[in-house]
């Protein structure tokens, strides 16, 4: 008798199939006003670094 075993192979995160819907309402959001403190922090951190990796 042949036993069949179902093995689920994970596709991983990056290759997972997703449904992406373009939402025009999201395009109206003024993103710069959403998290100014986080953007300022990123700019401070980047300013401290000599250069970007090659």
């Amino acid at each position, binding site marked *: 008798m042949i036993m069949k075993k179902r093995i689920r192979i*994970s*596709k*991983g*995160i*990056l290759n*997972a*199939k*997703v*449904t*992406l*819907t*373009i*939402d*025009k309402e*999201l*395009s109206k*959001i003024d*993103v*710069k006003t*959403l*998290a100014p403190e*986080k*953007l300022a*922090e*990123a*700019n401070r*951190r*980047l*300013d*401290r*670094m*000599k*250069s*970007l*990796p090659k």
Partner: protein
Amino acid sequence: MRHEPYTNLKASEDFQVFEFESVGLHGAIRKRIIFLPTKKSGVYSLVFGDIGENSAFDIYATSDNGDHNKVLATVAKAVEIYTSRYPKRWIHFSGSTRERTRLYRMAISINLGELSEKFEIYAEVSGRNEFQAFKKSMPVEAFLIRRKKF
């Protein structure tokens, strides 16, 4: 330990904004990911948070919805989609708290094999003024990533 992302994402036309819904212990919670241009040319800051009442964006919200691995997998998927459109852009990110940055480090470490196939991953480390190639258990302050091939 691998986690599948949420499969329904919404995005703005330019992919600057992504949204999805976390469904867990406290019901459905809207999540938003934004990519903001920094002062450094070609570098974009990833910011992630919850959409609260009155559509307020809250990067400090703790939803405890019991699905943080799935949520982080969805953020990674959004980065994958974003960088497939903008492959030359660097993405800079850190958590809104030290604990969250540590959580990101752990998640990246666990999935490093898969992530490093597609991305160059660098870290800002305290006291150093040059980005370091990311290694597991590094004390990371912030991350900088980019698509490997473009």
